């Protein structure tokens, strides 16, 4: 039947009635945004066999039958739900939509969700395990079997473990996109080899939050806020873009105000009631001015501050005033921040004082409905950037908007990491100086981006080095130093790149092992996106689909394209081969409980978790007559709880109070066992009292409450940790003048913001997504017209040379009013490349020539992108030629001495391109980058000199794959146990 034969009124009446019929049948009607009879998704009861009409054959009504199988997006960190439409005839994925059963993303997605389908059909993806045959980096590969690769890698790891060379094993992960699986593997191996990307990402902000509340990330309850104060661009990027954008807009529609601090005009800034474009690094001065005014005007929540700040500890330790009154403290506080006037902040930031005063009024009147957020942005840009987060949270702490409705939660209370089966009990016995060097005792995450320098300084060697969702050559600053390290057999014995696609670091690997995209792998996720806790399940959708059809799939390679695998099964198999007989004590963690002696299957692993560790899930599954695992395979996500509220105000229940001891600071300790919790979300270990009692809470105004997992049990306005480890001047929220503060720049230097994201790309993961590349494919340098005129850059598109401290890059200019004069910005989401003669992603990588002479390295662009023949006719329609410029190569490492975060902002000279300059030219002297490393090393206060207790690091600070306590001891410093 076609349009010509239809009675449309009849049709529409029938469709309208369908809603009532759906509901009458007891099926789920998913209301859409339009609030009409149309559903946004098919009823979940019909996901097994859904009939839809073919859009291509339209208006002929050709039917397609699909199975709708949920999974989790991997095109950023938000872990939004996806529903794969698996064609019942071809058993291939036709498209991805959102998953309405996902509590975080609620069925909606950004551009990157639907684009997943282009990644799984990417003609350039890697389909088979590859082994290097030429020199490292030469681009010659041979296809090998998985068995060969696994045996080789496992053999090396086993030898290393047997020879007690644990520190020569390293797993280096970018955004993990999962909770706990791989850390469990490292723990099982007993290897302190976990390395992350986090110090080039969120460590700055994490430190700021962690020193306040013992938890390291914010979870703003945007939807219920009265004021949202963002140091971020969460309407277009970042953690957690789509879930947060939904809720920010929801709140705006309910009358909430939005204040955005972003030096460049972002899509988020354009929606703000107040867009503040501060000079980079001055954000903390703005927050302190707001705080100062609130304190002076007594607009803060005095009851909250009195109850929950560790003000007594501060008054005693810093002011030497035992028994000081709260009013005394308020007077001290007022005095401490007196200098931070609006005028001072205006002078520092360039934002006028009147606007700051207006924003302050909004903050003060938001009360407990102040939702703030900072993830990377300024906290990742500046020396002392962690104080941006610390001073931002000061506003929550002043308004009492901590874990309140519409306020800001600590992430750990809005996150649920279910405890896995056979959780390894052991901790690594050694300490890895390559990831946790003693010069940086307070960092929250590994000093990953310093690896080439640390290896060089300490003559390091890694026998097996895994990279996964991690592309250090491209993503990290100073990528040429990484190339040098990765090509040096004296430093890296075997580099195994686990990746679905080619990347700049995989070019320098020994094995390239293809791993699945989001719909081709298992993972568990749970992220703090609103005041609730949920667990999301990523799964290979074709495996789930074929199992529904009665097939038994025991290995994800059976359903993935080519020989593409997934990490979960890879790690299990690899571990089994490392310890085939169990003699190393590792195998047991991957051994089936149901079938002793056999390798655990993923069904057993996840089945156990869903049976035992996700409260409410077994009941929900039973109500549908399925197992919890089947439930998760069917719906993909489960909300464990919502409206968590103010955990710190909860009274500690009596059963937990046994032989209680309360110390002078009001901390309460108990002999009662810690009630078993299925949620193993990382929390700091709290010191027991001298008799070994466990800390259960803190006494506040006569009540024993949960408090915060900080040393004091309170919100730490003053951090004894920072004070005792050598940073007394930074122990309270304060303003650190950034390395790119104007007083640190020469007259002809400007600040380069190099970190901003684009809404449709995701780091180095999305260059294989044709629809995304079509939308965004270059990264010109944003420059204000006044600066452009001053520098003689006449027109947008003119080439400029951007000189950093170690080299330069040549890029096009984008002359715009959307950037503060004196500041330039260049998105980091571009500039992918492949060396001449290498395979790579033809959609999104320029072909380049690499060369180096001595310590000077260069990269020059030989060819952009263009149409090419492939299995996909669309690749002949690539109409764009540019893929942008890889600026990070020209950045030196800038580790913040406290947070360890790389301080991304660059002091640069922007010049008109010189006559010989070509677009995309890059030149770097890595001797200068090593000198920059040494210069920044001088800012540190090493544990050797400042550890108050002979340990490498405060034990209570969060740390992935925490080693045994004895490993915390500095080797050449006494016998302290680490207190």
């Amino acid at each position: 039947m076609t349009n010509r034969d239809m009675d449309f009124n009849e049709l529409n009446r029938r469709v309208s009635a369908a809603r009532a019929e759906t509901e009458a049948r007891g099926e789920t009607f998913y209301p859409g945004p339009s609030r009409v009879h149309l559903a946004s998704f098919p009823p979940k009861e019909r996901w097994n066999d859904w009939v839809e009409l073919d859009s291509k054959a339209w208006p002929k009504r050709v039917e397609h039958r699909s199975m709708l199988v949920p999974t989790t997006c991997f095109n950023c960190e938000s872990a939004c739900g996806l529903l794969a439409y698996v064609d019942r005839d071809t058993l291939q994925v036709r498209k991805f939509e959102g998953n309405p059963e996902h509590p975080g993303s609620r069925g909606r997605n950004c551009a990157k969700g639907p684009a997943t389908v282009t990644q799984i059909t990417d003609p350039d993806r890697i389909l088979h395990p590859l082994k290097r045959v030429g020199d490292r980096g030469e681009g010659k590969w041979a296809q090998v079997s998985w068995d060969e690769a696994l045996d080789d890698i496992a053999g090396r790891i086993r030898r290393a473990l047997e020879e007690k060379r644990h520190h020569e094993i390293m797993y280096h992960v970018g955004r993990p996109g999962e909770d706990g699986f791989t850390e469990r593997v490292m723990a099982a191996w007993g290897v302190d080899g976990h390395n992350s990307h986090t110090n080039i990402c969120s460590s700055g902000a994490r430190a700021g939050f962690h020193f306040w509340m013992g938890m390291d990330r914010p979870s703003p309850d945007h939807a219920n806020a009265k004021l949202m104060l963002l140091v971020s661009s969460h309407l277009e990027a970042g953690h957690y873009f789509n879930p947060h954008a939904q809720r920010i807009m929801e709140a705006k529609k309910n009358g909430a105000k939005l204040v955005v601090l972003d030096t460049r005009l972002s899509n988020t800034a354009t929606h703000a009631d107040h867009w503040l474009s501060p000079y980079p690094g001055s954000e903390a001065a703005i927050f302190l001015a707001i705080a100062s005014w609130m304190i002076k005007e007594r607009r803060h929540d005095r009851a909250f501050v009195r109850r929950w700040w560790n003000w007594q500890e501060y008054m005693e330790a810093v002011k030497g005033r035992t028994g000081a009154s709260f009013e005394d403290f308020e007077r001290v506080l007022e005095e401490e921040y007196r200098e931070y006037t609006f005028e001072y902040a205006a002078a520092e930031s360039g934002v006028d004082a009147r606007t700051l005063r207006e924003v302050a009024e909004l903050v003060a009147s938001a009360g407990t409905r102040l939702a703030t957020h900072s993830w990377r942005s300024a906290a990742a840009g500046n020396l002392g950037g962690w104080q941006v987060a610390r001073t931002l949270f000061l506003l929550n702490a002043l308004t009492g908007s901590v874990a309140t409705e519409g306020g800001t939660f600590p992430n750990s209370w809005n996150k649920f990491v279910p405890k896995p089966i056979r959780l390894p009990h052991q901790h690594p016995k050694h300490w890895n100086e390559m990831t946790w060097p003693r010069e940086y005792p307070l960092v929250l995450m590994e000093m990953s981006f310093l690896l080439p320098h640390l290896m060089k300084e300490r003559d390091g060697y890694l026998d097996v080095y895994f990279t996964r969702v991690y592309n250090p050559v491209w993503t990290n600053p100073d990528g040429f130093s990484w190339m040098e390290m990765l090509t040096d057999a004296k430093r890296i014995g075997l580099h195994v790149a686990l990746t679905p696609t080619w990347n700049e670091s995989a070019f320098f690997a020994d094995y390239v092992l293809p791993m699945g995209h989001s719909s081709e792998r298992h993972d568990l996720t749970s992220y703090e996106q609103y005041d609730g806790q949920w667990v999301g399940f990523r799964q290979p959708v074709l495996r789930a689909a074929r199992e529904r059809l009665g097939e038994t799939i025991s290995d994800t390679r059976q359903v993935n394209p080519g020989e593409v695998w997934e990490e979960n099964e890879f790690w299990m198999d690899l571990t089994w081969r490392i310890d085939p007989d169990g003699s190393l004590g590792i195998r047991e963690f991957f051994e089936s409980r149901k079938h002793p002696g056999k390798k655990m299957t993923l069904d057993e692993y996840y089945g156990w978790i869903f049976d035992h560790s996700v409260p409410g899930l077994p009941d929900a599954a039973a109500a549908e007559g399925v197992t919890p695992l089947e439930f998760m395979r069917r719906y993909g996500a489960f909300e464990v709880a919502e409206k968590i509220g103010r955990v710190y105000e909860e009274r500690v229940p009596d059963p937990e109070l046994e032989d209680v001891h309360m110390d002078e600071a009001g901390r309460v300790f108990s002999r009662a066992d810690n009630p078993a919790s299925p949620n193993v979300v990382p929390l700091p270990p709290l010191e027991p009292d001298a008799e070994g009692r466990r800390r259960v809470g803190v006494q506040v105004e006569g009540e024993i409450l949960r408090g915060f997992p900080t040393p004091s049990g309170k919100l730490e306005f003053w951090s004894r940790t920072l004070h005792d480890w050598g940073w007394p001047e930074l122990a309270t929220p304060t303003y650190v003048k950034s390395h790119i503060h104007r007083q640190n720049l020469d007259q002809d230097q400007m600040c380069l913001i190099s970190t901003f994201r684009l809404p449709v790309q995701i780091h180095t993961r999305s260059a294989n997504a044709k629809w995304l590349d079509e939308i965004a494919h270059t990264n010109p340098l944003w420059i204000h017209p006044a600066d452009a005129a001053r520098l003689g850059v006449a027109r947008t598109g003119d080439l400029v040379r951007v000189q950093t401290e170690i080299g330069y890059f040549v890029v096009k200019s984008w002359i715009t009013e959307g950037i503060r004069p004196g500041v330039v910005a260049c998105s980091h989401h571009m500039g992918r490349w492949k060396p001449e003669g290498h395979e790579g992603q033809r959609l999104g990588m320029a072909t380049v020539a690499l060369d180096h002479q001595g310590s000077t390295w260069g990269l020059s662009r030989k060819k952009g992108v263009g149409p090419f023949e492939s299995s996909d006719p669309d690749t002949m329609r690539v109409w764009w030629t540019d893929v942008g410029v890889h600026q990070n190569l020209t950045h030196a490492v800038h580790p913040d001495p406290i947070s360890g975060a790389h301080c991304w902002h660059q002091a640069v000279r922007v010049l008109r391109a010189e006559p010989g300059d070509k677009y995309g030219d890059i030149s770097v002297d890595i001797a200068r980058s090593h000198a920059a490393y040494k210069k920044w090393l001088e800012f540190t206060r090493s544990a050797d000199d400042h550890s108050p207790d002979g340990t490498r690091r405060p034990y209570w600070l969060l740390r992935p794959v925490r080693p045994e306590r004895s490993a915390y001891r500095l080797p050449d410093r006494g016998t302290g146990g680490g207190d």
Partner: protein
Amino acid sequence: MPATDTLPATAPFKWAKVIDHTRCIGCHACTTACKSENDVPLSVTRTYVKYVDTGYFPQARRSFQVTRCNQCDAAPCVTACPTAAMHRRPDGIVDFDKSICIGCKACIAACPYDAIFINPNDHSAEKCNFCAHRLDIGLEPACSVVCPTQAILVGDMNDPLSAVSEIIHRDAVAVRRPEKETRPKLFYKGADQVTLDPLAARRPDGGIFMWSEQGDVSHQVPSGHPGRWNNSAAAVLAYDIPHRAPWDWRVSLYTFTKSVAAGAYLMPLLLAALGLLPWTTVEWGVRGPLVAMIGLMLTGGLLVWDLEHPERFWMVLLKPQWKSWLVRGGFIITAYGALLAAHLGLAFMGRADLTPSLAWVGGPLAVLSAVYTAYLFAQAKGRDLWQSPLLPAHLLVQAFMAGGAVLLILVQDPRLVGPVVGFSGMSVVLHLGLVAGEVTMAHPTAHATLAARNMVWGRYAPWFWAGVLLPAAALLVVASVPAAAGLLVLAGLFAYEHAYVQAGQSVPLA
């Protein structure tokens, strides 16, 4: 309000769409969800998000516009489509049927919003159709569902309780280019004039936008205003897609060959009717009509060649949608071709004496053949340059000019040269006069002004000036070397047609 416009108790369904730009965050999710749902290839798109940056630091903003088919109640694409492949469903959805699309691109030319494109996979026209295949089974369109901020709503305009009705009737909404009288059923809430008006924002230099290239594709229509901006606020286009003009040189050439086809018959007819050319001359009897016939066959050939589905050209005549001037024109030139065949047949059978009587039909058909293109172009509602009331007359003049030029080349009898030169000269002078009017008169819209500027001083200036100067030169030499003058006139005419046809399409619509 007339009674018919009030809402009947059981009003029929009328689908409408609201895009709420107070919510849109410019994330492009709708773009890729649509590509996925409808399998839309690279290089074309059914929907995308345009960005415009406005203001001076620090008072600057970015405006978004989700840009797509407007589901017009008076849809120009439907009117222009020769086969009803583009059609409006009774429930208001402007839908399409690729199985009967001939790929003439008349719908693309007609759409004032540049919302239609030829899919390179199947060579048929497509656009946003509301995801009709989803609506009809009770699902919201893919873009509505994916949108993180729920900025895209659909609903029944005739249902007063629907969210879209509420917004359309209670909020300040806008539509794109209401002056085109298309009555869009896509309503923008919170839209910004700098995005609604395709010329409000300045095109950035350097061939780039904020994070993409402006593109360098065939028949590209560069986005934004090439000068400053059509707005006193500083507005710069920050993101757009490459747009393309539908009709290439083949259509320019078609207008030329059609002028020749009409004129080669009309000019001898005019001279003969005035007694300046005996009915018995070979110019009237054979040569003129033969050239006309050749011109007409070339015209038809070019028309078919320009189709994306040439094998379906017959649908114009056998599945006609009568409002389409492509259909009407098709029948006119078919009839004219038949008339010319009859004329030539009679001439070859030695019954040339009957041809003057045939001219009572042939004359009007030739005139219609010459001028119908003006109506065809006028159906391209967004192309303001072509919306000229003088265009029919001008095309007729051009036909005479072409006919005159043909005669200048063909005529050998010295007695006939004088009148031919005279009338050719007059047609050239008339043509130049009309062109002078086109150039010197102010244009009623920014679009037409820019199109005229592109024609006279911009990208098409070489063609335009050839179109003016070659015929002018012909006037100087026509008395001495008439055949050379004829060639100059023909060359000039083609150059002018090309400039006019291409410049008419050179202004961005989205």
